[in-house]
C-alpha cells in the first residue's frame, strides 16, 4: 500500500471553487477511479464524479489527472508518486466537482452531421462511435483552439468527418469537405497537437485533421483545373 495525497479541484454552485486534499492509501494495482471510490467511501461522500464501464470503453470517467486528460478507470494511481491532482475536463462547464456537462462536446460533434449520408450510415443505425473513438471529450478538453474558438467543432468531430469523407460518395464527400473547410472546421486547428497526447485511445486525431486539409486543398485545385 502507498500513501497518496489526492488534491481534487471541486466546484459547486453554493461553495464555489476550491481544492480539497485527501490522504488515501492505495494498492499498487489501484486505478484513479478506485482512489475516487475510496475517497467517497471513507472520507467524503459528497465528492461527485462519473464512471460506468470501468474497462475504458465508455469514456465516462475522463478527467484531468496530474494536468493531463485520462480515463480514471485506466490510469494507475501508482503513476502519481505520493501526490495526485484531479480536475474536471477543460472547455466544458463544470456541474459539480469532477462532473462536467458534456452537451457542448456533443453539440460540436453533431454540427458535422456525424451520421453520414451513405446507405450504411442511416440515422437509425448510426451511433456516435467513430472507429475506436469513445467520444470521451479528452481531445476537446486538451485543445487550446477549442477554448479560444467557441465555434471550432474539435478533434473528435473532425476525426469522424475524415472517416465519413473517405466512406461517402464522391458528391457527398465533396459537400462535406466544403462544409468543414472553415475556421469552425479543419482550419480552426492550428497544429498544437495537444489532442494527440490527450486521447486515451491514442488515435491520430491531428493527422486526420491535416489529412482533411490536404484533401480539401487538393479538391479545390482539381476544381480550378477542371
Amino acid at each position, binding site marked *: 500500500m502507498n500513501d497518496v495525497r489526492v488534491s481534487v479541484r471541486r*466546484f459547486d454552485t453554493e461553495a464555489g*471553487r476550491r481544492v480539497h486534499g485527501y490522504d488515501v492509501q492505495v494498492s499498487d494495482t489501484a486505478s484513479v477511479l478506485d482512489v475516487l471510490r475510496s475517497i467517497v467511501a471513507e472520507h467524503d461522500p459528497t465528492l*461527485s464524479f462519473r464512471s460506468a464501464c470501468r474497462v475504458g470503453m465508455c469514456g465516462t470517467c475522463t478527467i484531468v489527472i496530474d494536468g493531463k486528460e485520462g480515463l480514471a478507470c485506466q490510469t494507475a494511481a501508482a503513476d502519481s508518486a505520493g501526490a495526485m491532482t484531479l480536475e474536471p475536463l477543460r472547455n466544458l462547464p463544470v456541474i459539480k466537482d469532477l462532473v462536467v456537462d458534456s452537451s457542448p462536446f456533443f453539440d460540436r460533434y453533431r454540427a458535422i452531421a456525424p451520421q453520414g449520408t451513405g446507405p450504411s450510415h442511416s440515422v437509425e443505425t448510426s451511433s456516435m462511435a467513430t472507429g475506436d473513438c469513445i467520444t470521451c471529450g479528452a481531445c476537446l478538453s*486538451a485543445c*487550446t483552439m477549442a477554448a479560444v474558438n467557441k465555434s471550432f467543432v474539435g478533434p473528435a468531430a473532425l476525426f469522424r468527418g475524415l472517416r465519413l469523407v473517405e466512406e461517402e460518395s464522391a458528391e457527398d464527400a465533396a459537400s462535406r469537405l466544403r462544409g468543414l473547410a472553415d475556421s469552425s472546421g479543419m482550419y480552426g486547428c492550428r497544429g498544437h*497537437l495537444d489532442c494527440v497526447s490527450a486521447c486515451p485511445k491514442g488515435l491520430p486525431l491531428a493527422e486526420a485533421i491535416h489529412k482533411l486539409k490536404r484533401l480539401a486543398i487538393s479538391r479545390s485545385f482539381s476544381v480550378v483545373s477542371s
Partner: protein
Amino acid sequence: MTAVPRDQGERRKWLDRRPTLGSVAWIVQRVAGLALLVLVPLKVLGGWAFRQDIPFDSFLVRMHLNGAVDVALITAVAFHAVFGVRTVLIDVGLVRTARVLTIPLIVFASLVTIWGSVIAL
C-alpha cells in the same frame, strides 16, 4: 444530482494550466510574425536612408545600425521560421506529436539567436 444550467456551471479557462509545447510554438510564431511587421520595414528603410536612396532620416539610420534591433530581427526570423517549418511538417503529416522536432527546432532557433547576438552586440 440536479444538472446545473450550462451558463451557471463553472467555465474553466485554458490559461489556468501550464501552456503546452504546441500552444507555445503557436503563440511565439504569431508574436514573432507581428514583430517582423515592424522590424523588417525598419531595417529596410534604415538601409535605404543610410544609402540615401530615400531622404536621410537619422532615426532610421540609427535603428539600422543598432545591434539590439539586429538581435530582435534575428530572433524573430529564427523562431518564426522554425515554427513555420514545424507547421508545414505537421500539415504534410510528417510530425504527429508535439514533442517530435519541436524541441530540436527551439534549440536550433536559440543557437541562431545566440550566434547573431554575439556578432551584433
